């Protein structure tokens, strides 16, 4: 409450102040505009990043948490990685081949890739990392079910034999979440299922771990003996990575207003996750550049294990009662921060994106919703919408949808909860009938948490059809077949309505005007970035 009020006051104050200074540049381009780097790269210096939440660990293999990922991908590199177009490319690997029967994967390693401790990557390191990934990574555990054996053929080659065809294997190995990062064998064995301790943070990335002052900052320094790849145009998490800065200093700054003030006064160079409400403040300030990128979407998930939403008719009524355009407008305000798309993946994920099957997405028909409700067994019992009140976004979506749902005859009760409480309450269907929550960009259908059958995050979704599609996905042999499956997945979601997508969300970061960034892809990475004079 204090925070909101203070933000409001500050915003008013700042706007008045800026208005008084004469508001020259109102024609500022949309938030989606990320300027191309200008001029020649400048070497050296420190990049100070204001990061809004402290990671629990920097072990990118152990957790799928975003704060871990955003920092750890400077330190560690996976065996295979996604490029700018979300294609699987070699990273630590030199190359990989898949046998004709699609069960034998042969991966060769690059020569003399240096670890931060001075040693070089060997086949043993890769196998030990792979073993650890298979036990502790949620993605790795999926793959583990299909892995029959891993053998070192020579000191540069490993072979992975699968028990049956599993074509998601490559994208699992390249997933930037619970990643298959390569660490020295002795560290992998020593750490086992425990997250890596700060002393064990030895990777191969362009930056190495230096210091972690809990609650305050995480410092990475340039790794002088970094073994770079040569492809300059791959982007994403692979290809050539050049560290221009000598040091990356991630400071934990929780209040976005502090981050904005810090950018204005050159205390910070880059700040992540600024609430959209502050966009006006950011946009009108010539010393701050907004940076934005799609980052998943907001969803409404009904609890399908109990009445009334176990009945598809009531879910249909829910879907038709919701005017997603009105919800998004009321929630995100500025149209730069949302887009309407009923697909399961982001449009930029060319190999995962299919528009087909999403025709029902924007359907809105309150009259028909009323009729459907009347036909069903629902008799006006009070239904609980649970959401986390840490996020203004989900609070607003809940409020607008309450209004829309009550218009067609639902009785709605809002249950706002603090995040930790929310997570716990989520696990029991008795606590809620609908949840409003956002999901960050995923990289494979296996990772769509809101659709994993019989879990609370999917609202106890239980569908033969969906499980069948997931099985098909595992054995699909080419891109075309995969696209067909993706279309079929969209279709299934919009027919069975396990969850209702509201809109794609855009994340807003800000940077000082001198900071030049190569690309933002999923989240910012600071190799290839530099700071102008």
């Amino acid at each position: 409450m204090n925070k909101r009020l203070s933000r409001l006051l500050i915003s008013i104050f700042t706007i008045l102040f800026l208005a008084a200074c004469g508001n020259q540049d109102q024609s500022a381009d949309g938030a989606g505009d990320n300027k191309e780097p200008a001029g020649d790269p400048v070497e050296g210096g420190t990049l100070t990043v204001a990061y809004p939440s402290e990671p629990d660990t920097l072990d990118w293999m152990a957790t799928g948490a975003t704060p871990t990922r955003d920092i750890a991908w400077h330190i560690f590199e996976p065996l295979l990685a996604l490029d700018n177009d979300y294609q699987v490319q070699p990273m630590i690997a030199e190359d990989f081949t898949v046998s004709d029967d699609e069960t034998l994967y042969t991966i060769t390693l690059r020569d003399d890739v240096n670890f931060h401790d001075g040693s070089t990557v060997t086949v043993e390191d890769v196998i030990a990392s792979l073993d650890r990934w298979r036990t502790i990574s949620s993605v790795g555990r999926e793959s583990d079910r299909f892995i029959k054996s891993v053998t070192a053929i020579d000191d540069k080659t490993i072979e992975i034999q699968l028990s049956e065809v599993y074509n998601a294997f490559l994208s699992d190995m390249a997933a930037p979440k619970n990643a298959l990062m390569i660490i020295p064998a002795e560290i992998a064995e020593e750490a086992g299922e425990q997250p890596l301790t700060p002393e064990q943070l030895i990777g191969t990335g362009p930056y190495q771990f230096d210091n972690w002052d809990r609650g305050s900052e995480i410092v990475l320094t340039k790794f002088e003996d970094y073994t770079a790849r040569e492809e300059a145009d791959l982007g994403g998490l692979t290809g050539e990575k050049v560290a221009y800065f000598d040091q990356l200093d991630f400071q934990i700054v929780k209040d976005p207003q502090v981050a904005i003030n810090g950018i204005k006064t050159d205390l910070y160079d880059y700040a992540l996750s600024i609430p959209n409400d502050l966009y006006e403040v950011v946009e009108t300030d010539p010393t701050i550049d907004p940076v934005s990128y799609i980052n998943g979407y907001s969803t409404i998930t009904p609890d399908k294990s109990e009445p009334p939403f176990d009945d598809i008719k009531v879910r249909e009524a829910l879907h038709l009662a919701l005017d997603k355009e009105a919800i998004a407008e009321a929630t995100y305000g500025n149209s730069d921060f949302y887009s309407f798309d009923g697909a399961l993946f982001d449009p930029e994920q060319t190999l995962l994106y299919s528009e087909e099957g999403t025709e029902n997405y924007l359907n809105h028909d309150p009259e028909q919703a009323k009729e459907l409700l009347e036909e069903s067994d629902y008799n006006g019992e009070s239904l609980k919408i649970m959401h986390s009140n840490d996020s203004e976004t989900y609070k607003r979506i809940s409020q607008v949808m309450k209004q829309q749902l009550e218009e067609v005859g639902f009785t709605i009760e809002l249950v706002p909860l603090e995040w930790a409480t929310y997570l716990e309450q989520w696990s029991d269907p008795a606590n809620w009938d609908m949840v409003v929550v956002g999901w960050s960009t995923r990289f494979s259908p296996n990772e769509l948490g809101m659709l994993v059958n019989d879990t609370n995050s999917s609202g106890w979704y239980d569908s033969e059809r969906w499980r069948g599609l997931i099985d098909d996905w595992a054995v699909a042999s080419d891109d075309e077949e995969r696209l067909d499956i993706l279309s079929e997945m969209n279709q299934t979601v919009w027919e069975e309505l396990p969850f209702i997508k509201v809109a794609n969300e855009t994340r807003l970061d800000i940077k000082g005007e001198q900071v030049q960034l190569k690309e933002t892809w999923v989240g910012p990475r600071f190799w290839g970035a530099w700071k102008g004079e």
Partner: protein
Amino acid sequence: MLQYTIRRLISIIPVMLVVSIIVFMIVHLTPGNPAYLILGEDSSQEAVQQLEEQLGLNQPIVVQFFDWVINVFKGDLGESVYSSEPVLSIILDRIGPTFSVMLISMIFTLVIAIPVAIFVVWKRQTALDPLFISASLLGASIPEFWFAMLLVLGLGVSIPIFPVAGYIPMAEGVLPWLHHLILPSFVLATVEIGLISRMLRDGMLEAVNQDYTKTARAKGIKESAVLMKHVFANALIPTTTVIGVTIAGLLGGTVIIETIFTIPGIGQLLIDSIHRRDYPVIQGVVLFIAVIYVVINLLVDLLYGLLDPRIRYD
């Protein structure tokens, strides 16, 4: 005196026990648990149960409580659920910034509040007094977070004299340390200045017309000496009580100030741990704050004896 001190120190133990029971209960009865937070939104039930077992959260709450209390008496506050660092060392890491802010704001408070109050009492017949009353009321009632934001905008952003946020340990230079502490400490001091100067003024005005002051004046002592020796000295006792309470209160105030100025102190640690349900850390920090509270109160009581020779501890 020594006996009194020892008696008071022993009485800390039951206080701590009560505090620890209350904290433990509140913390554990709050919904939410770290296992869900660590594993994130798409965790499986089995994984959550496994982690709860590993963290010992599946045991009955009474067993957990006694385990914890027994360890506390052995001097072991437990380990953070997240970083596995001992709670005591986490607290010691974070105490520097908090004490720094408290120290500087206490200096601000005393250096401003005492002279101002004396001056106002000296000029008590003028229009200064009503002006002072309004100002001290304003100081005591100004919302800290708002004042902080205002100062940051004014003296951090518009006229960049002070850094808008951050903390630099004293070991890296006394001047940068001080430079980063001035804004947060001043904000924290504002309320205390309002309270203490007002308290001191009231106390002094009460003493100004007492018989002993009149006698002093009748003896021909200069007004300034009367004020300092007789009036000020007598008003110090109630003021000391307030200062004691204030120092302890500063610990609470730092929670807000540390967030606004991103100072990695005890207050931020407490808030973070609550959000993360890092039970051992929450319990450790609250216990630690309680100890400080009790010790400061003890020191204040002992100080009375020094300020007023009539007070004896038997």
